[in-house]
């Protein structure tokens, strides 16, 4: 790719020479400041917006005629909408994991990717949060699930895992949003300070919430950041555990499995990281961030994908072992049916995408190649979607009594809704790329060699030039 650094157009390339604090600021902030994004952004945004329109149209149609517009049926009462919900919640894991857990573990490489990983989390959880609301038969009354005091003294039923979901996902979204926004405040202030027009100064001024960069502010900021990180860390583990309870606490063979919480969390991190690399590769290419999001960072993420992919593979194997070991004929059947039944194609797609293909990351050449990284990231995302499909639809389609068995076929509206949710996600993400600081400027600086003048080992660690792709 041509890298012609232009002083006026940040999209044409990235700055030559070594990075320093000013250049980091400039590199990130000018993306949000450019008068016009490149034509590619418009094309991408147009496509995303069209898909979002499809999302709105499909949900509107579903509300109009009933959720029978989707392919859900008896016995597969939960199908695409819940698959999509679990998929998006899973995607939403990586952001907080990178921000919180890696922060607490002092993994400084996270600074390059944490901002947009967090943004991705927020947007993914928004996408996820829509599904439980619209998948219900009477989508105009999801508030029945909230503990709203009312004159009829009606209260949610707290033994239901769906009720737990409401709180788990709600808490996770709130904390993630706070974490993301708070982390962005110093950078928003930077953009405010660089702003040349009054509207920009005004809007970013409000968003920056009066940030002046005083020592006291920095001190409080860092304390709060640490606290939120500590608060968010258990949530990373809890939210998908709770989502997995929807299945694990039920009686259906293929759902009723104690391994689900760790298995779901591993899968969520796996899928989340895959989504981060899927977004990071084009972002660093098109927005000139190669100096900040280095190949090294991608490689580290690929290693996480490799590790969590194997965890997921282990969980797949363990499910089979337990099904056999339990001696429960219904469990045994469900797993045999996954391998050889009518939905075997979905199962083998999942295995290929989640277990086999990520093994390519054992090769350094693969995991340091941006295009291979991108391709495998996409493949893992497909695989993780199919994992949820296999768990939900395959298990439901053949449960205890053979007289109920059926074969679920999604309708066209199902595909429109699924595609449309990506439209929502990418619309939000492209807006984020356009208007907000994509990389945590302040945090990157904190790990920059210049921040550690006099500490030779740090300088050495951060000063090598990025490997070229």
């Amino acid at each position: 790719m041509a890298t012609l650094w232009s002083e006026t157009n940040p999209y044409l390339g990235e700055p030559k020479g070594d990075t320093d604090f000013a250049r980091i600021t400039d590199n990130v902030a000018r993306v949000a400041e450019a008068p016009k994004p490149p034509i590619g952004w418009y094309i991408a945004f147009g496509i995303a917006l069209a898909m979002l329109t499809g999302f709105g149209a499909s949900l509107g149609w579903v509300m109009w005629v009933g959720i029978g517009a989707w392919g859900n049926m008896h016995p597969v009462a939960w199908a695409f909408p819940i698959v999509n919900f679990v998929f998006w919640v899973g995607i939403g894991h990586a952001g907080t994991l990178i921000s919180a857990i890696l922060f607490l573990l002092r993994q400084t490489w996270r600074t390059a990717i944490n901002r947009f990983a967090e943004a991705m989390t927020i947007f993914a959880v928004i996408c996820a949060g829509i599904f439980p609301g619209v998948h219900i038969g009477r989508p105009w009354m999801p508030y029945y699930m909230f503990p709203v005091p009312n004159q009829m003294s009606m209260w949610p039923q707290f033994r239901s895992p769906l009720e737990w979901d409401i709180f788990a996902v709600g808490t996770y979204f709130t904390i993630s949003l706070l974490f993301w926004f708070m982390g962005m405040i110093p950078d928003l202030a930077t953009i405010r300070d660089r702003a040349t027009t009054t509207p920009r100064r005004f809007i970013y001024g409000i968003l920056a919430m009066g940030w002046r960069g005083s020592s006291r502010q920095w001190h409080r900021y860092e304390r709060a950041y640490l606290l939120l990180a500590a608060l968010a860390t258990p949530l990373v583990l809890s939210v998908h555990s709770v989502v997995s309870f929807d299945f694990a606490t039920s009686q259906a063979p293929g759902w009723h499995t104690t391994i689900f919480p760790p298995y779901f969390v591993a899968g969520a991190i796996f899928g989340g990281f895959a989504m981060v690399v899927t977004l990071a590769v084009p972002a660093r290419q098109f927005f000139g961030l190669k100096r900040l999001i280095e190949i090294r960072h991608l490689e580290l993420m690929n290693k996480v994908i490799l590790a969590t992919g194997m965890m997921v593979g282990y969980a797949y194997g363990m499910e089979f072992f337990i099904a056999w070991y339990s001696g429960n004929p219904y469990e045994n059947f469900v797993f045999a049916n996954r391998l050889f039944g009518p939905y075997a194609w979905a199962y083998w797609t999942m295995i290929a995408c989640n277990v086999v293909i990520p093994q390519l990351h054992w090769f350094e050449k693969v995991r340091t190649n941006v295009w291979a990284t991108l391709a495998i990231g996409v493949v893992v995302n497909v695989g993780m979607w199919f994992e949820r499909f296999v768990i939900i639809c395959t298990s439901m389609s053949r449960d205890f009594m053979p007289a109920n068995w059926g074969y679920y076929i999604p309708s066209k509206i199902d595909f429109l809704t699924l595609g449309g949710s990506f439209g929502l996600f990418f619309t939000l993400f492209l807006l984020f790329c356009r208007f907000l600081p994509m990389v945590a400027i302040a945090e990157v600086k904190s790990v920059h060699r210049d921040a550690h003048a006099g500490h030779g080992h740090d300088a050495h660690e951060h000063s090598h030039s990025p490997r070229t792709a």
Partner: protein
Amino acid sequence: MSSMNEKHPKPTYWRSLAELDNDPKFQKMLENEFAEPLEGPDMAPGTPARRRFLQIMGASIALSGCRFKEDKLLAFSRRPEGVVPGESRQFATAVELNGVATGLLVTSYDGRPIKVTGNPLHPTSAGGASAFHQAAVLSVYDPDRSEGVTHLEGRARTASTRKKFEEFLVSERARWQANGSKFRVLASVSSSPSLASLRDRLLASFPGAKWVEYSAVETDNPEAGTALCFGKQHRAVYQLENARVVLSVHSDAAGATDPSGVIASRGLAQGRVPEGKPMSRVYAVESSLSLIGGIADHRLSMPACSAKAFLAALDAEVSKLLGEAGKGAQPVPSAKSLQAPATQKFIATLAKDLVANRGASVILAGNHLPAEAHAIAHRLNVLLDGVGKTVTYQELPLRERRSEALSGLLRDIAANAVETLVIIGENPVLTAPSDADFAGALSKVKTSIALTEFADETARLCTWHIPQAHALEAWGDGLAHDGTLTLSQPLIEPLHGGLSAIEFLALLVNDIKRDGLDIVRRTHAALLPSQKAWNKAVHDGLLPGSAPAPASVTLATLPAFALTESDLAEVGATNGKLELVLAADSKVYDGRFSNNAWLQELPEPLTKQTWGNAVWLSPATAKALGIGDGDLAKVSVSGKELTLPALYVPGQAEGSLRIPLGYGRHFAGHVGGHDDANVTPVGTNAYPLSTTATPFVLAGATIVRVDGRQEIATVQDLHAIDAIGQQGIDERRGLLLAETTLEKFEKEPDFAKHLVHHPPLESMWNDPVAYEGHKWGMAIDLNKCTGCSACITACQAENNIPVVGKDSVLMGREMLWLRVDRYFSGTPENPKLSFQPVPCQQCENAPCEQVCPVGATMHSHEGLNDMVYNRCIGTRYCSANCPYKVRRFNYLNFHLDKVEATPFQSVKDKKKLLMHMVFNPEVTVRARGVMEKCTFCVQRIQNVKIKAKNAKRAIADGEIKTACQETCPSQAISFGDLNDPTSAVAKDHALPRAYTILEELNNRPRVRYLARIRNPHPELG
């Protein structure tokens, strides 16, 4: 009464109150606080109170928005005696099918009949009812029924009036009276004494006129068989409850298509109790699995054409065993189809068993078998000393054979010897064999008059079409299967001003009595002379003891019946000789019910197919011919062809094809198919394959695969089951449906409780309720269940369950709360069939209750899983967590969309809202997005509780009956209070063979099943 309402040439169902307000008579009546006695010009003085009540009720419908008659409106401020507004009442009435009247009790709510069940006093129903009966109420409100007289002038059909028709009659009647030789009537088979008297009156007043009895799907071969045996025609009445050995030869005596199927199921089931008394043994020899074949202990698949040879062989064998008594037996047939060692052994063992149980054995022969086969069966019944024990005979007047009468009519038409043809209640253009070319014949008749409910294939070609009143709209009478006089009364005034057959005939012959009630009363004036006796008979729906005494029969020596080439044919897939059996359908009968959405959506008991038919063939035959399940296939026989989907049906005799009749109608209505309304016919019409000579069993058929497939909307095994799925079914069938032999059962009576080994069952939750009051429970006896599926339609009628249509069934969205699971075991060629009705199991430790986030399904203090529809938001988690998958979800607004071809079309035609009149007002009509399920008919429980509480008494056992239990012809279901150890259900639950399905999940269902026990002959294994 039942006027055609000339003042309202365009009858409408929905009248606004404003319209009423403009009516001066209505105004006057409103002003008059004390209304005048209800005696209009068409009311004879002293008409019984019952009739008056109906008129008032009819008027109240007008108030609530239905049709009204202006001179009968009365405000409920003066309440008719005995009527409590908002309280349902039951009336005895009857419907007739193929000459047998079945007594029913119809629940009427504010003048609307909404629910049917069997009349417990009536010998043919004994309280049970078939799916046909259950669905009758929906037919009453069918918006496609004809609304008025139409007349064909030239080529155009125009709306006419009853008055014009009467004027037409005045001019014609004189000609008919002068010379009736060109006058013909083609009417349904009927046992109605009133109809018979009017028929005689007609034949007398139109000299030379002829009356043709017609049935599309039933023959009079059984009666003809008795004529061969006893010299005179007799009707056989079976008492299966007395039989210890039952042999069914191609008989569907327990099915809905048999008019006495309900009582036959009852009798059969009474012999299938393994506790206490000896259990009966049932043998079946048939080409397709029938309901009797399903409960049979031994079953032989055999082509229908071999039936005569089989019966001859059995006759020879039985007669040999009987020695001197058995002389005059048929010679041992040389049929190769009987030579297989297994068949020989079957016949030998069967003969031994029949003779060993002399006096307690019975042989049932299928209606479509030739008269000679029936003769052999009757001979054997006499020889085996069954007469007076398992079968009685009643003498019938000698009549012309039905098939000959029809051919005679067609010959006369061809010879231009018929000028006027009156068709009553039949649709011969659809149902007559194709070589009869009834439509062509009809065009040669100058005046044709059709009295039918619908403007169907026949009526639309007739010069006059008069709407016929539904059986529940008319007075009538008939005879039960044993000859008991049965009376039927209207539940509602004819919604479309139709006439009953007797009223119509009275009009034709210009009888002084024109009203159905008057005619029926006149007919039975001798039997029911007093008002009191009449009232009692109408109240009971029958006259007890009016059945004729059984005739004593003397067995004539039967000649040796020649076995024709087709009787000896070796039917098989490999030799290319196939036979085709055409038979009445268990859902639409001969096609007359094809516009009834409940019946169309009822899963066929054996194939579980809804919305359509297919050609049934055994998997082996199909594979030999290269035909896949669901492939389109072309069936050809005697030069005629038909393309329809092929369906693999286990238990089909090899080389035998079967197509249910009554489908593929082009002028049925918005449900069954109508060309003018662009509604594609449901299924394929197989009548064109039938011939006058061999209407139902046709030899020399061929079948080839043609390109294309058609999805068959079955509710079970909707998609072909792969090897892994089949393995799964095989593994768990024995766990879900406990089954053993009598011998093993006697050794280990509680075997069903030990099918699954599991650790001690402990729950996380404490029992929420102590159940100090009632504790409802149900038991279903799998040994009695024949799988007839009447319970499904009963449940649908009682609980306002929507019809979803074929598309939604194909998507697996049927809404039926009660399903009847069907399992095959053994080989596909000769399978064992088992049925398991599955309602909501009402678990004590219910998985659905725990997962509902909004508490929309809760445990009641009487142990029910209540559904709170208002609270339900439709997460469907309960359904996902229900191991029995008994919960049904309203994916669309099915009640509005139910008759539409596509799920997304809403009903534009307000006329269709007439169907909503059938709703049970005591059950919520669910909208889209709500989960629903079986409630154990909680509304019935509450009604009885209220009644008992008001009377300050305890609820008696058996006082509460669920809809499924009430209708069940074989009484397989018991329901009641488990807290009462003397209740029937508590006793059933305590039986050793009672078990719950999926017990190991610790849901603790309230429904227990009584295991299926088979009683095989030790020598047949």
